[in-house]
């Protein structure tokens, strides 16, 4: 199937109002699955994290993972939702080979969280309030691999293989209300929203939030209507948009595609569409029809979830600060330039810098360590900078020794290397490696005199005004003192001798 005809984006926005709605699935990072004790692990051998419950053997029954409920409540609270005093699981009935029981245990008319909102700030500083309709708990499906045919795709495949390791992994589905008025910003807003959800669940440590692993997945609803029309247009639901760029591009594509159809007197089919990241277009799936009669009914094998107020408040109290609010607060407190701050954020080093500052380092110094020397070391060791074997407190301590003149910058880098090499705390490394600024000028003066004796013309040149001649002696002295002196102090002493 080829790309369809599109209207120019600006023209589409001019002619139509864009309404979007987003459904984001978040895989929780609980130890075990939603309804059974199988490990919730990515990447194991197929069908090794399965049991009678998650492969739906006859007679098996589900049992709800308490931690998954707790994480779901936490997500609801973080999105400003109300938590339902009574929530219930329901069965969503449809046949598909990746669905072991041929029904998905989900929530229908009694979701655990509802009626929330979240502010999304776009890059140009415009803030949108996105209303959350609901967040509900459900289970993930297994994984299908299509064999034969051209590209491993579903069409043309000879047969398919099913791995149920992912079946029963807990999911929270977050559904927005229709978002109006974003206009040309709709695609960017969609991506920023998904980014914000990802950031929030990551900050809460309820999900690994890795989009490339499918921990966060998005379905994007798009509809258009002529400006001023009250009735909503027919929407399409684009699935499989699993990167932030895809979200933005898919929404943009659907706006242009639908605009072309509508402007030419056509009608939009309510359907599921699939996003093809490689070639940048959506294609039609099955049209919505009676076949989507999911026959929801309350899951009779499970009892209602009725979280107590005390439990909810306990979860609320443990919530981390909203990442966007936190960023705003830290940027102000640290006084960084915007570029400097973005560098920290993009490198995912906010936690490290904040902790280093909290341990006593100046914000700029903390930033320089983490985005500079430490990032470089991490890169050369091929590890994430966050995974380096040095703590923010240790970094702060080393910086403090520089500030007090006990370490030179070069020595400090040595200390860092020692800490990373497992030689212990900074003080122990300094002790072991004999790294200490020599503060006894006697030894230093002797070294300077010795160096000057070898280059007798230097003092003369200085006296003639060629101060840069001191450089050669400084180098020799530093070498003689194995770097454990402050270069500025050496220079000062040489100039004194020349007087």
């Amino acid at each position, binding site marked *: 199937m080829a790309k369809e005809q599109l209207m120019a984006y600006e023209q589409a926005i001019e002619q139509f109002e864009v309404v979007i709605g987003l459904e984001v699935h978040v895989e929780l990072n609980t130890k075990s699955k939603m309804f059974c004790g199988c490990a919730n692990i990515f990447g194991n051998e197929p069908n090794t994290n399965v049991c009678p419950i998650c492969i739906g*053997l*006859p007679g098996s*029954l589900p*049992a709800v993972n308490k931690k998954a409920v707790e994480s779901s409540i936490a997500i609801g609270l973080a999105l400003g939702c109300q938590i339902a005093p009574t929530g219930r699981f329901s069965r969503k009935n449809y*046949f598909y080979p990746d669905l*072991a029981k*041929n029904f998905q245990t989900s929530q229908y008319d009694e979701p655990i969280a509802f009626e929330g909102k979240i502010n999304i700030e776009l890059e140009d500083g415009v803030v949108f309030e996105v209303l959350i309709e609901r967040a509900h708990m459900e289970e993930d499906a297994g994984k299908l691999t299509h064999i034969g045919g051209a590209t491993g795709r579903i069409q043309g495949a000879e047969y398919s293989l099913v791995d149920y390791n992912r079946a029963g992994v807990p999911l929270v589905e977050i559904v927005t209300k229709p978002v109006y008025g974003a206009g040309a910003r709709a695609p960017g807003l969609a991506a920023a929203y998904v980014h914000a959800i990802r950031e929030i669940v990551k900050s809460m440590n309820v999900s690994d939030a890795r989009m490339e692993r499918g921990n966060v997945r998005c379905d994007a609803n798009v509809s258009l209507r002529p400006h001023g029309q009250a009735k909503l247009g027919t929407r399409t639901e684009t699935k499989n948009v699993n990167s932030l760029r895809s979200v933005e591009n898919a929404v943009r594509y659907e706006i242009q595609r639908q605009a072309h159809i509508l402007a030419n007197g056509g009608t939009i089919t309510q359907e599921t569409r699939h996003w093809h990241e490689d070639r940048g277009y959506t294609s039609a799936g099955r049209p919505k029809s009676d076949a989507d009669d999911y*026959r929801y*009914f309350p899951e009779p094998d499970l009892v209602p979830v009725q979280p107590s107020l005390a439990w909810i408040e306990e979860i609320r109290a443990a919530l981390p600060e909203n990442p966007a609010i936190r960023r705003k607060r830290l940027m102000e407190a640290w006084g960084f330039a915007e570029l400097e701050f973005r560098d920290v954020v993009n490198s995912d080093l906010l936690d490290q810098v904040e902790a280093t500052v909290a341990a006593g380092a100046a914000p700029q110094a903390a930033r320089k360590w983490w985005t500079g020397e430490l990032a470089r070391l991490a890169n050369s060791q091929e590890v994430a900078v966050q995974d380096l074997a040095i703590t923010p407190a240790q970094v702060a301590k080393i910086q403090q020794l520089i500030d007090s003149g006990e370490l030179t910058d070069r020595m400090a880098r040595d200390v860092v290397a020692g800490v990373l090499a497992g030689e212990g705390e900074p003080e122990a490394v300094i002790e072991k490696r004999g790294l200490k600024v020599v503060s006894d000028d006697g030894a230093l003066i002797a070294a300077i005199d010795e160096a000057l004796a070898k280059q007798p013309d230097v003092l003369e040149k200085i006296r003639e005004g060629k101060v840069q001649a001191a450089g050669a002696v400084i180098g020799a002295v530093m070498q003689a003192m194995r770097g454990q002196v402050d270069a500025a102090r050496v220079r000062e002493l040489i100039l004194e001798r020349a007087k």
Partner: protein
Amino acid sequence: MSELIHKSASELADLISSKAVSSEEVTSAFFDRSVEMNPKTNSYLYLNRDTALAAAKAADAALANGEKLSPLHGVPIAVKDNLTTTDAPTTSGSKILEGWVPQYDATVVAKLRKAGLPILGKTNLDEFAMGSSTEYSAYGPSKNPWDLSRIPGGSGGGSSSAVAGHLAPIAIGSDTGGSIRFPAAVTGSVGAKPTYGAVSRYGLIALASSLDQIGPVSNTVLDSALLQDVISGHDKHDSTSLPQSLGSMADAVRNADVKGLRVGVVKQLDSDAFQPGVKACFDDTIAKLVAAGAEVVTVDCPSFEYAIAAYYLILPAEASSNLAKFDSVRFGLRVTPDGNPTIERVMAATREAGFGPEVKRRIILGTYALSSGYYDAYYGSAQKVRTLIQQDLAKAFSQVDVLLTPTAPTTAFKIGEKVNDPLAMYLNDIATIPANLAGIPGMSVPNGLAAEDGLPSGVQILAPAMQDAQMYRVGSIIEQMYLAEWGAPLIAKAPKLEVL
């Protein structure tokens, strides 16, 4: 040793624990009897001498070490074939599961093994427990030991015919709308459906999850009580299993006393709808209780009128979803149509070939009841009827300790008589269904032979939720009254099954 097969489970347990006889001898005796009689009764779908005798020997060895694992230690048992067993195929009476050996034991099966009860085999049932005669079993009907041309009740007709025919001293059944109690009534045996949640359903191949309950089948009230004590208790694998213990049913039986007993007769279940002989037996039971000093009043349960209708919406709805997993992917039958079919067609062809007509009927009915546009009117209303029935029962139990009804409208009917008339078949459960809808315990105890056909009749005892002990108390009182009259259990009047 053949007289062993006529003894009750509690008598056998006493003999085994006193080492007068070994579990191996008892198990052998029942096994030999089963091998001989099963061709006539079709009680068992599967028998395995090796595993049964190995378990019996292990029970004997434990006893020799001074370990008595339960009050039924060493007593062999039959298990309905809708409970998963790792050492025996589990079919639930369906072709779609033929040959499947489960990867796990049902909680009840695990409890039986731990309690030292050797499992003789797996008993026949209507396919997926849908039916009241075993005629819907894919493996042919079981026969009633009282008259081999008649049904042994259903869906648990394999268990009831095994117990009534002395192919097993006790058996496990499951009861969704009467599948333990109806077979017990028509075979002159005892069967109890505990309070919903008293026994774990983990490993019970679900029919209707909110109605299903596992329970005992036996020839005496004490045997059922002992067995319920073995299999009940909270199970973390069943979220609907009760957290609390309901006490000892065996104690309730042993200490049964009619003093102060208040009995209710349900107006809606005391009518001409019952076969005259069945009605006469019921009236006789009531008269005996009054004579013994019980207070008997009539109670009104107007919502019972809607029980069958509600049941035949809730059950198919839940079943249509529970049976969706039979799709040819992970276990069971696969039928691949000609050509190059898609998985959708393979699934549809498999389910067409693997399910019998009654199962298909109920799946399609349930799909209808849940589909959009009909849900509120059908499934929604049916769930509200459950509330009304609970309210009626709450009112009734504020006046009386137990309710009594005839268990079944008729005695055992002829095989083939109702098999093509689903609606007539559904009426067999008219008295038993309210207990499942409300979650309360109910049991059937033999109360005589109907005058017109000489076939057994049963009286049903219903007690409030959690008060299973009250039910067993009254069951024991009634049993003792008849024992005094007959001098032996009703089952002793059954014709002797002889090898052809």
